[in-house]
Structure formats: C-alpha cells, structure tokens
C-alpha cells in the first residue's frame, strides 16, 4: 500500500525518492503487524474448506464467547473505574502536597510501581492474599476474619485487586499534568465572584478535568483488556477472559476451531481500536487547556 503511494507521489512531484529510506521500517511494520492482522481478518471469514462464511462470527454468540467478552469487559471496566476514581483523588492530593520532596517521592514510586505487572505482580498477590498469604493469615489470627473461601485471589475479585494495582499508579501519573493545568487564577476568580469550593469544582474544576479523566479511563480500560500475564499466572486458563481464551487456543490446551479464534481476535481488535480512537479524541480535547 505504501509502495504504490510512494510511486504515485514520485510521478506527481518528483520527490518520491525521499520515501526510499522509509522502506525498512515500513517493510517490518507490514510484515509483522499489518499482514498478520490481514490474514486473521481473512481467516475469520473462512470455514474449514476455505470458503467464505459468516459462521465464525455467528459462533461468537455462543455462551462460551459471550461470557469471555462479558468477563473481560467487566474486569477492565471495573478496574478502570477504580483506577480512575482513586487515582484522580490520589493525584490531586499529591499535587496539593506542601512538600515537594514527598510529591517527588510519590511520583517516583508511581513510576516504578507502574512497571510492576505481569507474573511477578501476580505472584506478589499470592504471597499477600493467597490462601496462606500474609494478609490472609494476619486477618484470621488477629481479627478472626477468615476471608477464604468467600474471597479468593484466584477469582474475579482477586483479579480486580491485582489489576487495580497496576492501574492506580498509572492513573496518578496520567492525571497529574491535567491537575497541574488547573490554574490558580481560575480558582481565585471563581472565589472573588462568590463561588465556594463545591461550586468551583462543579462548574469549573471538573468540567475542565473531564476530558482528561475520560481519556485516561479509556486508556486504563484498554490496558486491562489486553492484559494476559497477570490473569494467566493467577488463574491459569480456568477463568474465562478473552485473552486467556485466545492464549489457550494458541498453546493448544483446548482444541477448537481456528476460524473462531480469528473472529475473536478481530472482535478484540475492533473493541481496542474503538477504545484507543475515543481516547485520542478525548486526549486532544484535554490538551486544549494545557497551552
């Protein structure tokens, strides 16, 4: 696609040679990203005999697949909302801290912890909240509160806790520039016109922050939806999530129709693409206030 475009430009403007240095980059992009997805798209419309069909997508209505999409959307949605609410609050309080040293410390910590994810994070949660975990034992021995079997780190709510762990610091980091963009003058102007703190937030603070918060919420959603390692380490393939389903299809733990896998992959890409596009729109709007 790029090659034909470059030839056209060369003919039209005579400057097409400028595209030549881009060839290695574009070639790898096409070979490793574009073509595999194109093949998946094609495969999702083919049946076992290589004929056109919509059957693979019709199959997505089966309970197995609807459940995995529902679980993934719920898990990503809940942890994105938790992350957004708590992260915005922590971000705001961090920004308002008097001491720059502590503020810098919190930011550094967020930076470091937002890189803790995947398998080591999952294992850390087993240490803390597994059936013999540190906190599990402390709660039962000090407070007589046995959290198992009502709660389990290997269950949906366990996953919520582990996912929130990597969503939170990310949100704090994402929201800080937006909060820092709230100008002191606006608050003072509002106050001089008689607005109390609540009115200020209701009519000025939150409306200005809203696009940034929405953008970050969408980013967190996408972040959680595509996650695999944390859920795999905690639950194996027992819990029904989209990424775990696709993973078990690949490792051959479950023998299933490859066409269905392709359809599932394409639906995932559509959902992710939509989320990221909306994120970009919201982020562009949020940037207006940062000039």
């Amino acid at each position, binding site marked *: 696609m*790029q090659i034909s475009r470059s030839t056209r430009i060369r003919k039209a403007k005579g400057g097409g040679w*400028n*595209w030549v*240095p*881009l060839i*290695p*980059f574009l070639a*790898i992009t096409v070979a*490793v*990203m574009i073509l*595999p*997805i194109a*093949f998946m798209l094609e*495969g999702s419309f083919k049946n076992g005999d290589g004929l056109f069909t919509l059957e693979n997508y019709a199959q997505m209505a089966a309970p197995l697949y609807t459940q995995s999409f529902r679980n993934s959307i719920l898990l990503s949605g809940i942890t994105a909302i938790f992350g957004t609410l*708590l992260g915005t609050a922590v971000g705001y*309080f961090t920004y*308002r801290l008097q001491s720059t040293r502590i503020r810098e410390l*919190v930011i*550094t*910590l*967020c*930076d*470091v*912890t937002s*890189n*803790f*994810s*995947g*398998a*080591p994070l999952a*294992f*850390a*949660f*087993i*240490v803390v909240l597994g059936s*013999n975990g540190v*906190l599990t*034992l402390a709660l039962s021995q*000090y407070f007589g509160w046995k959290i198992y079997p009502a709660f389990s780190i290997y269950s949906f709510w366990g996953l919520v806790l582990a996912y929130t762990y*990597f969503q939170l*610091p*990310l949100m704090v980091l*994402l929201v*800080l520039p937006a909060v820092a963009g709230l100008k002191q003058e606006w608050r003072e102007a509002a106050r001089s016109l008689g607005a109390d703190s609540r009115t200020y937030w209701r009519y000025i603070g939150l409306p200005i922050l809203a696009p940034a918060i929405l953008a970050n919420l969408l980013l967190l959603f*996408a972040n*959680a939806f*595509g996650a*695999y*390692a944390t859920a*795999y380490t905690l639950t194996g393939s027992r819990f029904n999530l989209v*990424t775990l389903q*696709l*993973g078990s299809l*690949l490792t051959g733990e479950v023998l299933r129709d490859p066409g269905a896998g*392709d359809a599932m*992959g394409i639906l995932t890409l559509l959902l*992710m*693409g939509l*989320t*990221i596009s909306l994120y970009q729109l919201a982020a562009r709007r949020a940037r207006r206030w940062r000039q």
Partner: protein
Amino acid sequence: MKQRSLVGPLSIILFLAYMFLPILATYVFSIAIRWDRSILPEGLTFDWYRTAFQDRWFLIVFKHSITISAASVLVSALLIVPTAYWVHLKLPRALPLLNLISTLPFAIPAVVLALGLIKLYGQGPLQLARTPAMLVLAYVIFTLPFMYRPIASSLEAIDIQRLTEAAQSLGASWPRTLVQVILPNILPGILSGGLLVFATIFGEFTLATLLVGARYKTFPMQLVYYTRRDGRIASAYSVISFTVAWATSLVILWVATWGTRRSAGPRTAQDLTRKQASVGGKV
C-alpha cells in the same frame, strides 16, 4: 477545612501501603524460612536464592532474556532513529503516517499479535513464527510507541534542519551527520526509550511464551513455572525481576532529568508522553 487536610494525607498513606505491601511481602518471603503458618516469618535464609542460582536453568533463562531484550533494543533503535530523523527532516508529509503506525500497537494486545504471527508464519517446516528472531521482530513492533515517542520529542526539541545544514555545509555526509551531529543531541531520548524497551521486554511473558515457548525459555517463563511448583524459588525470581524493573525505572528517571536539563523541555510533558507510551505492554 481541617477535615479536608486530613483526607489528603490519609489517602496518600493508604495508597502507599497498597503499593508497598505486595512488594515488601515478596522481598521478605524470598528470605523467609517459612512464612505460610504464622504472621511473622520463621527465621531468615538465603537458601531459596542459592537453590535458584544453582539450578542450571537460571543462567540459561537469564541469558536468553538479556539476549532477546538487548537484540530488540538494538534492532528497534537502528530501525527507528534513522527513519524518525529522515521523516522529521525531509518528509514531514509522512509524519501523520509514522504517528499512526506508532500508535497502532496500543490497540493490539500481545495475545492477538501472537495469534496473527502464528497464523501467518507458523506453517511450513521452518516454523518462522516460533523462532527467537521472530520474537525480536514482534517485540520491535510491540514496543514501537515506547521507542518512537521519546525519540520524536527529542528530535522536535532541537533544530535538526539547521544542525543538518550546518553539518553538510561543512562537508559531512548523511551517515556522518546522523551519527556525529544528530545522535549526540537526541541521545537522552534514545536512552530513555531504549531502557524502557529493555525493561519491558525483560519482564514480558505473553509474546515469549505464546511464540517460542519452551524452545527458548525466558526469565518470566521460568518465574511462572515456579509459581506453580515452588513458591520460594518463585519469590527469588520475582525479587530479581522487581529489582531489574526498579533499577531501570530509576535510571530512566535519571536520564529524563539529565535530558531535560540539556534540551530544556518541560519535564512533566516529557514524562507524560513516555508514560502514555508505556501503556499496553508488560501486563
């Protein structure tokens, strides 16, 4: 007023506790003789590290992870630096295309990328999709935003047009201009991008296990293996993994401050682009 001044610090303390507890617990667990019957560990030991190090797999998987991460950083830098420089200098028309391509990996979960690669390159006797070389290429794509963003903002922070013209009017060739004039100026961007890519790939499990799997075991694969077999060795692996991530993050922060001192860009803005660039990996 008084009430509000308490809510802030309290929520920050709770947040810090939530962030610290799992890490701290893992560090202590890795040096505890036993810590699954009582609230405090039953004595301390370094045996689990010794056991982990003595296993012949430890060195193998560590070497594999270092090799794959370093190779990916190298390929990525060699591919992206000249491309980004050229496009910024000569072909601003292609900037939207480059920006689009470097955003796309955000929308592609690792599992889906693995599925597509195996679909396309998994057949035939070569099984290209199952080779470490393909894993490196997949990582280059997967970490594209991490590498491209810092390099692009470094390029935008300096006047590459004038620098290039100055170098060439003094008779420098293209490669020489890039290596001797542009490269030193955008080094902080390349370094922070490269370190982030390195740390991400070092801890990456999904693509590695789904593409090459047991053919080329990496550090995170061995860690997941031990979480199911022996929690004490898994804790030693986790601590090592944490420590690599820690160290890299701190170096990145250090490079970022060093870079802003040189290029005088607003620190938060740079941090933000890097942070947004880092979403979508690792997990």
